[in-house]
C-alpha cells in the first residue's frame, strides 16, 4: 500500500472511532440532561430556602430573578443575580450573589439574603479557594461563623463595627486567617449598602426570563 493511501486509511479509522465516541457522549448527555437540570435546581433551591425559609414566602424564588451590576458594591463588573422572595405579592427578602474579590486566594462567591427591612436573613459561601483548615471556616459545613451575620443590619452594628475584631469591629477572625473573614465582612457590608440604596428598584423590576436549559 502506498504511503498516502495508508495515511488516509489511518485517518479514517481514527475519525470513525471519534464519531462513535462523540455519539456515545451525546447519547449519555441526552439521557442525563433533564435529571442534571433538576438536581442543579434542587441544590440551588435548598440553599435559597435555607436562607429564606419556605414558610415566609409563596413564590418560586429560583425563577423570580433579576440581574444587577455594580463593581463598587457587588465586587464584580459582571451582572449579579438577585432572587426575590414574596408573600402574596409583598416583597419579603432579596437574595443577592455578590463576590468578595479580596479573599486570601482570589474571589469568594457569596449568597446574601436581606429582608425587606434591611436586616440580614443569612449569608452563605458558594465557592471559594481559601486555605483548607484555616480560611475555609467560612463554610457553613465547617463552622458556625457565617451565621454570625444573621439579624445584623447597616445600623446594627454601625459602620465602625462592620469589621473583624482585630480591626476594631464586632466580627470574629479565625486563628491564623484574618484576610478571609475580613473580605467576607466587607463584601456583606457593601452588599447591604447596595440593597439600602436600590431596594425599591430591586423588588419592582420585571423578572428576567429564565430558560430552564441555561442558554
Amino acid at each position: 500500500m502506498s504511503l498516502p493511501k495508508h495515511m488516509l486509511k489511518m485517518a479514517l479509522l481514527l475519525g470513525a472511532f471519534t464519531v462513535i465516541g462523540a455519539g456515545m457522549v451525546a447519547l449519555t448527555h441526552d439521557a442525563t440532561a433533564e435529571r442534571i437540570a433538576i438536581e442543579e435546581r434542587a441544590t440551588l433551591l435548598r440553599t435559597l430556602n435555607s436562607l429564606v425559609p419556605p414558610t415566609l414566602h409563596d413564590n418560586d424564588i429560583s425563577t423570580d430573578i433579576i440581574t444587577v451590576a455594580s463593581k463598587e458594591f457587588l465586587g464584580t463588573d459582571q451582572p449579579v443575580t438577585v432572587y426575590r422572595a414574596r408573600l402574596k405579592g409583598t416583597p419579603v427578602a432579596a437574595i443577592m450573589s455578590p463576590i468578595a474579590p479580596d479573599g486570601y486566594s482570589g474571589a469568594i462567591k457569596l449568597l446574601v439574603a436581606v429582608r425587606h427591612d434591611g436586616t440580614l436573613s443569612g449569608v452563605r459561601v458558594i465557592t471559594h479557594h481559601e486555605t483548607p483548615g484555616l480560611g475555609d471556616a467560612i463554610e457553613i459545613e465547617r463552622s458556625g461563623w457565617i451565621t454570625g451575620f444573621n439579624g445584623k443590619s447597616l445600623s446594627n452594628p454601625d459602620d465602625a463595627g462592620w469589621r473583624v475584631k482585630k480591626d476594631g469591629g464586632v466580627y470574629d477572625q479565625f486563628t491564623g486567617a484574618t484576610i478571609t473573614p475580613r473580605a467576607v465582612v466587607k463584601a456583606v457590608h457593601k452588599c447591604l449598602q447596595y440593597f439600602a440604596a436600590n431596594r425599591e428598584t430591586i423588588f419592582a423590576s420585571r423578572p428576567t426570563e429564565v430558560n430552564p436549559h441555561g442558554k
Partner: protein
Amino acid sequence: MANNDSTSDYSEITRNGLWDNNPALVQILGLCPLLAVSGTVINGLGLGIATLVTLVLSNAVVSLIRHQVKPDVRIPVFVVVIASIVTAIELAMNAYVHDLYLVLGIFIPLIVTNCSVLGRAEAFASKTTVGRAALDGFTMGLGFLAVLVVLGGLREALGKGTLLSQAHLMFGEGAKWMTITLVDDYRGFLFALLPPGAFIGLGLLIALKNVIDARRKQRRGAAAHHREGGNVAMPVSAAGTTA
C-alpha cells in the same frame, strides 16, 4: 504472556492488580488525583469507584476493538475511547450523585489523564481477551480504590478526627449516622489534610507494603530452609534492612 484462561491465570491477574503491581503503591501512577482527593474516606471512595468503572469499561472496549485498531493510531484511538467513557461517567455522576459530583469537581474529568488507565489499555487490554482485560481493569481499579480509601482514612483521622464524614454525599441523607467521630472536640491537624500530608502518607503506605513483602519473602525463605536442612535454627536474615 500466555493467553490461557485458566483459574490460576485469573488469580494472578487479581494478585497483580491488588498487591504485586498495585497502580498506586508499585506503579506509582495516577498520583495527581490520588494525592488531591484522598483528604477524606468518602472523597477517596467516590473517585475510586469512578476510576474503577472507567478502568473496567476502557479495558473491555479496548480489548473488543483490538483487532480493528492498527498500531499506527492505537494511542489516539485509546485516548478517544477513554475520554468518551470518562465524560459519560461524569454526566451520570452529575445526574445521580450530584452532591458528590460537586465535591469531586474537576477530578472526575481528570480521570482521563490518570496514566494507569491508558497504561492498562496499552500494556494489557490491547493484547488479550475481553474477560481477562475487564478483570484486570477491575482488580487494578480495586487496588487503586483501596489505596485511596486507606490514605483517605489515615488523613481524615489525623486531620479532622473523624471517619466517613459527609457520608450523606454518597449514600443520601439517611447515611449521616455513618460518620464516626474518633476524638471529640479535636482541634485538627492541618498538615495531614494539605498536599504534603498526602505525600508523606503515601510514602508511609509504600514503606509498609515493602516491609510486608520483605517479611513474607523472609518467611518463605526460612520455610524452604527448614525443609532442606531439618532442625536448623532460624537464619538471621538481612531482608529487614532492605525495606
